[in-house]
């Protein structure tokens, strides 16, 4: 029983905190206390779950309502899920620390704490569930909370961005639901592993093709893969910095995780199923286009938020390379990249928020002088910048190395070559970002930046350095994840 409670704690704790914070939102100081305390408890529970899963031999599974497996909704502490829940907790802690200096009384009165906790709970639910329909429900819940966070200042630009985001996301959710319904019609179960086992020996038919196309379109839109990426740079930049950072870190990766789950565990793309041969070229094309188009798109931007929004998508392209390789090591490469990317993207958004606080502008031309005014910030900010660019010894170097190595091993060298070209473009873009913000002389005197903001960034930068120095640890987790997803011991 304690194990079952531990398993659902990453979902229950934030929802309980969200309910409490919603009641207390008239008192912003109390709401903030509830938000910070709940995030702390969430972090403890998530890391306890990670530790429990790492020391356990069998994977803990809970089916709600005492139903046999395949009928009830089941949660399981299986591999990529528990790791991602722990990373989510890390992002949540960093966001809570950063929010002390970024989210003021007005935004807390508007329900910031409750919405943020609800979104974290929904993201954790998606990472832990084993049920296809339940996965769809968590996506919708996360979307509702995200829309609330996106429009928290009620500015026209936010309403505008939210309409774009909401309409695209609703379209995606409908496609996902249709695909899930078709899978249910074909296999008669909603449990991902059971349905995967039922599909394993089946020759690809028309209904299966339609279902996979719908799921691919819906989940690729959620993950921000080209050609479904246009909503992301059109909406993320309107959100407050803390919110944009959590969005950039978690929401697209939640979509990509679902893509991995559906195409690896359900359709068996990495275990040599018949469908894999048809799907792999499509994934290869999507990954290549996403990497190149979005790395180029980032170069054209001078608004820091849009520049990073394009990088968010380009990074999902690298993850999709792992999926396109249709091998177990390819899936492991995707998982490694996903964990690295969540931490780095969230950290970069936190960083540009502080640059804006100092310079008063989101535009790169107005920024500068941070290295003199805030040397500690410039140092801490350099870690995610260099990591995204793929410079050793930071986590991005290993992530890119693994993806490119696996693509060479799988005989898809052209995909690795495109990854290298996109990587070079990323280096240029990141060099411009850091040197413009930190080295260049500022046009106007800079303002002070909150210490809590730098502390939050330091936490995430430390995680990036830890992955960079001990990549074999995360690689072991990634290989365990690939084994759990493909269902091979």
């Amino acid at each position: 029983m304690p194990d079952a409670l531990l398993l659902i704690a990453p979902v229950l704790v934030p929802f309980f905190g969200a309910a409490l914070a919603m009641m207390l939102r008239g008192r912003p100081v109390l709401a903030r206390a509830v938000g910070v305390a709940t995030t702390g408890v969430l972090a403890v529970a998530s890391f306890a779950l990670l530790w429990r899963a790492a020391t356990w031999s069998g994977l803990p599974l809970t089916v709600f309502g005492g139903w046999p497996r395949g009928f009830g909704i089941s949660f399981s502490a299986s591999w990529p899920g528990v790791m991602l829940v722990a990373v989510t907790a890390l992002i949540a802690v960093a966001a809570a620390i950063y929010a002390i200096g970024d989210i003021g009384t007005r935004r807390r009165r508007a329900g910031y704490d409750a919405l943020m906790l609800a979104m974290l709970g929904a993201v954790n639910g998606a990472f832990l569930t084993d049920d296809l329909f339940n996965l769809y429900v968590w996506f919708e819940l996360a979307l509702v909370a995200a829309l609330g966070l996106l429009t928290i200042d009620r500015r026209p630009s936010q309403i505008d961005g939210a309409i774009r985001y909401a309409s695209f996301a609703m379209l995606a959710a409908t496609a996902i639901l249709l695909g899930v319904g078709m899978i249910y019609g074909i296999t008669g179960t909603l449990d991902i592993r059971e349905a995967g086992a039922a599909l394993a020996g089946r020759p690809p038919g028309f209904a299966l093709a339609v279902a996979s196309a719908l799921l691919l379109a819906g989940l690729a839109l959620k993950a921000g893969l080209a050609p479904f990426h246009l909503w992301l740079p059109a909406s993320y930049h309107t959100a407050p910095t803390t919110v944009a950072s959590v969005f950039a870190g978690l929401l697209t990766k939640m979509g990509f995780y679902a893509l991995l789950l559906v195409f690896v565990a359900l359709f068996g793309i990495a275990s040599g199923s018949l469908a894999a041969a048809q799907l792999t070229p499509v994934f290869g094309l999507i990954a290549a286009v996403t990497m190149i188009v979005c790395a180029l798109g980032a170069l054209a931007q001078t608004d820091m938020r849009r520049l990073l929004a394009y990088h968010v998508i380009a990074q999902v392209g690298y993850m999709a390379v792992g999926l396109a390789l249709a091998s177990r090591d390819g899936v492991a490469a995707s998982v490694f990249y996903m964990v690295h990317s969540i931490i780095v993207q969230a950290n970069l958004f936190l960083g540009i928020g502080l640059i804006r606080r100092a310079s008063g502008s989101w535009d790169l031309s107005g920024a500068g002088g941070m290295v003199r005014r805030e040397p500690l910030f410039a140092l801490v900010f350099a870690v995610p910048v260099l990591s995204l660019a793929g410079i050793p010894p930071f986590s991005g170097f290993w992530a890119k190395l693994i993806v490119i190595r696996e693509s060479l091993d799988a005989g898809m060298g052209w995909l690795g070559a495109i990854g290298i070209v996109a990587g070079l473009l990323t280096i240029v873009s990141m060099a411009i970002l850091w040197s413009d913000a930190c080295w260049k002389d500022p046009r106007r005197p800079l303002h002070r930046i909150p210490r809590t903001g730098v502390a939050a960034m330091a936490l995430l930068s430390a995680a990036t350095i830890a992955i960079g120095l001990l990549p074999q640890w995360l690689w072991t987790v990634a290989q365990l994840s690939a084994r759990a997803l493909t269902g091979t011991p």
Partner: protein
Amino acid sequence: MTYLYALVGAGMFGCAIILILSRNMVRMLLGLSLLATGTNMLLFLAGRIRSQQPPIIEEGVRTLGESADPITQAMILTAIVIGFALTVMLAVLVLRAWRTQGTVDARDGDAAETLGPPRERDPVDA
């Protein structure tokens, strides 16, 4: 019967997509709502059109005889609630856009696009 349901579902999707492609945001909203309803129709079909009996086990009997699939019904109920919540959410956003910008034409809603360079003066709230 199955073909009839499939045809109705397809018709709803067609109408929904035409509505979504409209520049009028209210039509887009209605289209998304219709799309969700069409999806429910197809979910219903995924459980197969079988007996009309409700999935209730009679007293003294241990197994369920010929009956309708309860899982698709549960899915549809959940999907209706979620679809309703999202439609309301989007309706609020469109209403807000209409109140602040006085238009429901998607071409005029470019506040998020024009935002940014060269200088943006949004209030820092801290």
